[in-house]
């Protein structure tokens, strides 16, 4: 995979949604952000790079498809989607070593005809392993968004994710704090995972803090029922947080310049 730099000439910006930690809501953020960008008039693709635990099919009311008859990416709610979950039965475990994961991620990027897109959002698995490394080496990433919860246990791994992207020189667009607080029926605000963690991490590493997304049961209900909250309830407070995030992305992403390396003259 290294050296096989993939060209995606029809895609303007490729954004990785990452975190070191699992279970912080990367897939939820990726899906809702993709839809929010689409609602801002953008052409958006969503690539699920979580090969072992794909979430995109369920969140979009899709599942296993007949590969011989289905052209990829699959179109749903105006987005172009690709996921391992379209290829493998959800009850079947994908028991692969790293190189196979890298190969699958490379195929999703390079062999799928993504066509003309403004944004390709890549939902990364947790950790700093094969999928992340393949993307950093082979994909012309515009930048990475780091998702974290406010709790210190999440920040520890988020820092590792940040460090990895710094090492491979992928610009960090900013930190999104998910599950920041919940609002009880009486209107009182609660912070079950603590507060200020995302802001703290952002200031520690010198990147923008892109906002807090509250906990709300509707988020998982919508995701599980196959229609992310941003599309199902666009006026919901959580949806508005995503719409704002998408607006920030539209404003800030074009400012990033790809730091491509020069070719070598070997005479």
């Amino acid at each position: 995979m290294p050296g096989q730099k993939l060209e995606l000439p029809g895609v303007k910006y490729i954004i990785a949604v990452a975190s070191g930690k699992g279970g912080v809501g990367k897939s939820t953020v990726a899906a809702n952000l993709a839809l929010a960008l689409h609602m801002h008039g953008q052409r958006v693709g969503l690539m699920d790079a979580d090969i072992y635990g794909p979430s995109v099919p369920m969140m979009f009311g899709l599942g296993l498809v007949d590969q011989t008859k289905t052209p990829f990416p699959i179109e749903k709610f105006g987005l172009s989607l690709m996921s391992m979950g379209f290829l493998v039965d959800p009850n079947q475990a994908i028991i692969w070593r790293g190189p196979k994961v890298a190969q699958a991620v490379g195929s999703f990027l390079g062999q799928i005809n993504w066509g003309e897109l403004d944004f390709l959002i890549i939902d990364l698995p947790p950790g700093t392993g094969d999928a992340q490394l393949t993307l950093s080496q082979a994909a012309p990433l515009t930048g990475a968004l780091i998702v974290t919860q406010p709790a210190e246990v999440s920040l520890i791994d988020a820092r590792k994710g940040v460090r990895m992207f710094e090492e491979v020189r992928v610009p960090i667009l900013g930190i999104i704090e998910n599950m920041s607080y919940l609002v009880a029926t009486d209107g009182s605000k609660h912070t079950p995972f603590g507060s200020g963690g995302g802001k703290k991490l952002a200031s520690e590493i010198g990147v923008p803090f892109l906002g807090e997304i509250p906990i709300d049961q509707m988020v998982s209900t919508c995701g599980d029922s196959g229609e992310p909250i941003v599309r199902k309830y666009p006026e919901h407070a959580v949806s508005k947080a995503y719409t704002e995030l998408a607006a920030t992305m539209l404003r800030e992403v074009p400012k990033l310049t790809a730091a491509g390396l020069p070719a070598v003259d070997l005479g």
Partner: protein
Amino acid sequence: MTAGTTQPLKPLSLKKDGDGLRIEWNDGTTTFAPFRALRKSCPCASCTEDVGKPIDPFRVLSAQEAAAGAPVPVGMKPVGFYAYQITWNDGHDTGIYPLELLRSLGENVSPR
């Protein structure tokens, strides 16, 4: 939008110069790294493992290795935004050289 405020180290041009690689960097420095030093410092897993081990006197060289002579890169491609992968004339191509390594292996030959 990016981490840090200082401009990260980046090569502006890389050119074969005799038996080494001349690199002009964005901080105004020019370095020269002999190919022999680059080959010897290959950061790939198998070369790294070999470091410190006694040379195996019974290792049979492949025809390509035997014919190669002094190390010369036959290909050098960017990897992402942070490294180059070198393909050597002996066929070895698994080493990915981060920019910091390329910089540290070169001697400063900046014009005064």
